[in-house]
């Protein structure tokens, strides 16, 4: 039992995690490719044309996964950041740093694909709907996190300052979401209701879930690649990184 515990903590050290991440990356890429191909096949070739929305609805196979992931990654990022702050794990703070750009990318993708979908469906690129607005604010939070971390030169200080910001952000996300929602209902902004989604065909749902899994695996693979680079950059003064780099040449 105690053996297993020690094994887990072993990977909290960047040196032990670096090769492990290297081994895991191809697997996650492969999974992302498999899920992605299956999801796109279901989404584009099998799923029926939507009765109301025509072919344009197919953008949800990217849009919905991107929105889910953008929110989920923020939680994961705050989790790692909090862990790093509480226990002073260097690796988990690096994980948070590595996740932020991917989360921001998904938030942006979600807004962008949403706009592409909104133009034919609602006749407008943008409405001040509660969901759109909070997704936009989520993007702002990501940008703030990235900007803060890149403005601080000392890596340890950047980690911990970023962690505090991520935790404050996580506490604020529900407050922001509900305030935006109430604001929206008061203003009677859009006449379109996103919440009443028509019952979805099963193939559509499966396609969407597979695409979500593909995006998830992609996010893990990319975050691991980024964290490996961060490890090399931060540990460059150590012997093992030097040995690693010489071995590659």
């Amino acid at each position: 039992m105690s053996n297993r515990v020690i094994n887990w903590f072993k990977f909290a050290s960047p040196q032990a995690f670096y090769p492990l991440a290297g081994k895991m990356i191809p697997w996650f890429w492969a999974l992302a490719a498999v899920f992605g191909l299956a999801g796109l096949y279901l989404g584009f070739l099998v799923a029926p044309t939507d009765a109301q929305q025509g072919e344009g609805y197919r953008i949800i196979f990217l849009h919905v996964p991107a929105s889910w992931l953008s929110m989920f990654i923020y939680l994961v990022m705050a989790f790692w950041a909090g862990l790093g702050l509480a226990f002073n794990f260097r690796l988990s703070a690096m994980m948070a740093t590595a996740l932020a750009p991917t989360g921001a990318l998904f938030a942006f993708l979600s807004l962008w694909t949403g706009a592409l979908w909104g133009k034919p469906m609602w006749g407008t690129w943008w409405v001040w709907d509660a969901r759109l607005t909070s997704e936009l604010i989520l993007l702002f939070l990501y940008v703030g996190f990235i900007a803060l971390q890149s403005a601080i030169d000392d890596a340890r200080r950047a980690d911990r300052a970023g962690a505090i910001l991520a935790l404050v952000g996580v506490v604020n996300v529900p407050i922001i979401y509900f305030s935006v929602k109430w604001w929206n209902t008061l203003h009677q902004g859009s006449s379109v209701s996103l919440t009443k989604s028509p019952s979805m065909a099963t193939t559509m749902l499966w396609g969407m879930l597979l695409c979500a899994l593909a995006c998830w695996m992609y996010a893990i693979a990319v975050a691991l690649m980024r964290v490996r680079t961060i490890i090399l950059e931060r540990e460059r003064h150590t012997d093992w990184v030097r040995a690693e780099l010489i071995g590659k040449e």
Partner: protein
Amino acid sequence: MLKLIVAVVARDLHLAMRRRADIVSALFFFIIVVSLFPLGVGPEPALLRQLAPGVLWVAALLATMLSLPRLFADDYRDGTLEQLALAPQPLGLIVLGKVIAHWLVSGLPLALLAPVLGLQFDLSRDALWVLTGSLLLGTPALSGIGAIGAALTLGVRGGGVLLSLLVLPLYIPVLIFGAGAVDATVTGLGAQAHLSLLAALTLCGVFFAPWPTAAALRIALE
């Protein structure tokens, strides 16, 4: 405990009074921003009445944000902050005192000035009262939440712009309920619900913000 807060507030007010130009320039920033809007969108009273709550609140947000870097920067530069952090009293309480002092020199004057500017926008008497009340209720939250951002960006290059990136998204709920209260009065809905929520935000903000702020200050001081 109370004595400590009072002492910090008195000290910060004393220092602020020696630099009155800082307070006044933030106020004039508020006035100028608000006055720019009629020039930009045209002087029709109906349009201005509709815009007034949002414009006044956004300008108040920006003016508060402008004065935030001074919250800790001077003390950080001359080493006072380090002494405060070493003091046996909890740093969170000291931060709370500084937040209160910041509100007294930035939020309170804004709230008192707002009705005069509201007149420019042809707001009714009730709306002016609610505007003042909502600013009085809401600006402490701005000082509290802003303190977190000010502490995080302490001594960081490009601090001012960075501060706005960090703090403005967190200000959104305060803006919504603050401007919403005035809006609701203008449209005749009654501002009670908005004001209650605004008070709740302020209580939570002022109560909880000193902790992350103190943690961020300790990180900055390392």
